[in-house]
């Protein structure tokens, strides 16, 4: 509260909001034909990637120089990442955007990029290691594309974000790691928001005792609390974007809120959510997997 100059906006710019709307419409159109499940995650997403790259969505963070805002600032990028997180599509879009933001020379838009983050176990975490062209890593003082390390193992807990475990060269700069933490957290916020949306939809349709379960106050109030948590997690993202020194605290808070929301979505769906075919564990898995990445990103940065 001490500062006077350089206060940040709390909500995305008008241009950012328009872009987010367009992006969200595009994603809904391209991903709604198949329900969440094994088939959804194993589909060939090559055409979608080409479309996103051709439309410029992979390059939204490319600014005048590394780390500088282009058309979109961090808050607008976080809104886009949130929309992307809603889809749970297993493509390295957010990773590509975050890495490109810090590159001096920019690769072609259709390059699939990721990064190698050192975790506490001295292992490198490489999201989407099996489907990328390069990782961004610090070489000669700036982030460049290097050959992705070959994973020695995998963390396949969340099909929306397979993580390769590798040893070897990697390394991101501190500011890039903070961006990775914020934007990856935003995908978890999106996943939790989509879990809420699914739970609300289900509560309107599912009938017990002759009434839709969403008319029962016990269920309604749980959903209201989930809504409050989704809203607060968006506020946590705004805080993280405005105050990078606090981004570790803010992203951890957003993840804690998102985790509870995704858990509650399972509860609202009831028994159906406990089966593999059920829709509610996919966003929950995503939130859980994101935590591993974000903690590794901020552990060494903040």
């Amino acid at each position, binding site marked *: *509260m001490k500062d006077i100059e350089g206060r940040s906006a709390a909500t995305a710019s008008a241009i950012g909001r328009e872009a987010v709307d367009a992006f969200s419409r595009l994603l809904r159109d391209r991903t709604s034909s198949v329900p969440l499940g094994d088939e959804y995650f194993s589909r060939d997403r090559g055409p979608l990637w080409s479309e996103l790259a051709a439309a410029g969505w992979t390059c939204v963070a490319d600014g005048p120089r590394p780390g500088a805002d282009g058309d979109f600032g961090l808050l607008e990028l976080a809104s886009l990442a949130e929309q992307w997180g809603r889809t749970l599509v297993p493509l390295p879009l957010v990773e590509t955007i975050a890495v490109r933001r810090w590159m001096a020379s920019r690769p072609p838009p259709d390059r699939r990029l990721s990064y190698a983050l050192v975790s506490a176990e001295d292992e490198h975490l490489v999201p989407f290691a099996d489907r990328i062209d390069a990782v961004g890593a610090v070489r000669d003082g700036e982030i460049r594309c290097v050959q992705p390390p070959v994973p020695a193992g995998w963390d396949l807990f969340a099909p929306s974000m397979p993580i390769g475990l590798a040893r070897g060269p990697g390394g991101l700069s501190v500011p890039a790691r903070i961006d990775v933490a914020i934007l990856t957290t935003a995908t978890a916020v999106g996943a939790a928001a989509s879990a809420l949306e699914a739970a609300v939809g289900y509560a309107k349709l599912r009938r017990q005792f002759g009434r*839709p379960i969403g008319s029962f106050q016990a269920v309604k109030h749980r959903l209201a609390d989930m809504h409050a948590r989704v809203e*607060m997690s968006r506020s946590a993202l705004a805080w993280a974007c405005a105050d990078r020194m606090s981004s570790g605290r803010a992203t951890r808070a957003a993840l804690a809120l998102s985790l509870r929301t995704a858990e509650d979505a399972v509860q609202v769906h009831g028994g159906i959510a406990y089966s593999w075919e059920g829709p509610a564990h996919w966003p929950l898995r995503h939130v859980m997997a994101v935590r591993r990445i974000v903690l590794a990103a901020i552990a060494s940065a903040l």
Partner: protein
Amino acid sequence: MATSFADREVARFRRDVRRWLGTAAPRFAVPADATEERELDLRRAWEREVHRAGFSCLSWRMEHGGRGLGPIEEFVFSEECAEAGAPEGLGRVGRLLAGPAIFGHGDARLRDRFLPRIVEGVDIWCQGFSEPSAGSDLAAVRTTAQREAGCYRVVGRKLWTSFAHYADLCLLLARTSPSEDRHDGLTMLCLPMRQAGVSVRRVRQITGRSEFAEILFEGAEVPVEQRIGDEGGGWAIAMSVLGSERGAGFAALALKTMGDDLRVLRHCVPQGELDSDLGPGTRFQLLRWQAMRAIETTAGGRDALASTSILKLVWSELVQEIVRRGFESGCREHEARWRDRLLDARETTIASGTSEIQRTIIGDRVLGLPR
């Protein structure tokens, strides 16, 4: 009027407010040992000082006597007042509830008569909505206002009314006709408090203090010209008033109280505990950003229901958690404070819509769940 906290004019406005507060606020600081009369005098005087300096009713339109600024400037002003330890004026109900009800729904005569006196801090208002049997179910209001020649004659009882014993006017929701639909027969009136037929009885709270009251109306009169909007149109006005009572303006006030509590709590518990993932210090920051998001959305003229609807629910429960933590810390130095705050804070989740009502509103109106 700013539409983003990043606007340059917001920084300029903040600097002006801060410069003025630096000299003005200390002169009106309420000493810890002040008598109630002294405190009231200071708070009343502060209200007028705010007006003299040109900071009263910032977001009201100029034609209504305001500054024609927006919710962002209101929030900044409130934040800076909290930081400077400025007292809270007595005009809250007038500025945030009665004024907007009058300029939103009243005629020109009513606006000319009452708005300048709210802006200048002359009239103190209280809010006459709740009754013994109309709490959460506000449409159950029983207080009647019978039309007689040029006035309404009011009979009934209002309860849990803040500012009642020094208010000049009451924003009164009363029943003007018995009707099939309970929501139809209600009317909003500006009732003068200083008249025969109005008696105020202090109500002692669970803290032992008596800050609010019960008002008894035994044939009190309200001139017909002091009706806001149409006869029978009171429910819609009440709903819009309650909307602002639960919105960002009050969240800013709550942030002030909470900030004070947190500052003390930092002496009583280990730092890491407050700033953990979902610790109270962290959630205070989230709430601040939530309020700022809601305010920017409102200032931009966009639909803010999704972001404002949760503010009251979240701040009220966070206040209680903070004071409970203070109490449980066992800090001897602040024991008396936390005992008092724990009791006092019971009010936050009850007044202006209980948490249960807020959750139902979110479920019904934001999420569109079946009723």
